[in-house]
């Protein structure tokens, strides 16, 4: 059994930084952003052609499908308002790798569908998608603020 610990502070820092991508933290999205994320995942996994998920999203297809399945289950069980939007927040735990993959998913779908059909296919505007992208970017940079 390997019981060796990091004797030097710099080694401990490296170990801490390498585990950051697998460490999960609770993340909350308002209902409409949760639905937009679901729509983006659906487009990326089932709609858009020619995406190489592992190299472009940064996670393997099975892992992304798992996130989609969980999101789909949540969406199906939500009560919706008059606009068909979930009225509750989605709170679940995501690792940094997963948040980065979700960020990349939203960005790829925005770029592929573009001005012409993002709204028609997802039911959301590109401005709403940009706000979701900002949420993910903010979350990805959050550890830097904590470390400092």
């Amino acid at each position: 059994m390997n019981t060796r610990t990091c004797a030097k502070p710099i080694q401990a820092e490296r170990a801490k930084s390498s585990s950051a991508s697998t460490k999960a933290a609770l993340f909350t999205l308002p209902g409409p952003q949760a639905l937009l994320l679901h729509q983006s995942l659906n487009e990326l996994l089932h709609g858009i052609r020619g995406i190489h998920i592992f190299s472009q999203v940064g996670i393997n297809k099975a892992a992304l499908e798992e996130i989609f399945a969980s999101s789909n289950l949540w969406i199906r069980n939500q009560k919706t308002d008059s606009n068909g939007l979930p009225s509750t927040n989605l709170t679940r735990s995501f690792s940094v790798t997963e948040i980065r993959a979700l960020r990349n998913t939203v960005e790829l779908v925005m770029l592929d569908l573009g001005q012409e059909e993002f709204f028609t296919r997802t039911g959301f505007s590109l401005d709403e998608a940009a706000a979701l992208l900002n949420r993910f970017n903010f979350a990805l940079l959050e550890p830097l603020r904590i470390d400092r």
Partner: protein
Amino acid sequence: MSLTDKDAQKIAHGIAFGHAYWKHVADAAEYGSPIRQSTFEQIILETLHSPTKSRMLRLNRTMFWNGREGLWVIHNPADPDLGTAYWPAEGRHEYENLR
């Protein structure tokens, strides 16, 4: 979801002669072989008249699935082109999950 002949023709024409032709037929070659806009219009019209499945989405959008062609048509009255039509990677799954 049923449309009148006049509505279906208007929607099919708007989509076939709008961005969808250039994006999905001319550039991405999703159909497999080159087709004219008039042929694209006929395939869309056939889909609107006899979809394999159809259902309403949020915000007055309607989706029509043509299982024979593997084609999705989404009618969006708020879109200047009246919607889009494309051949998705996994159409059946997209139908089940789109909101």
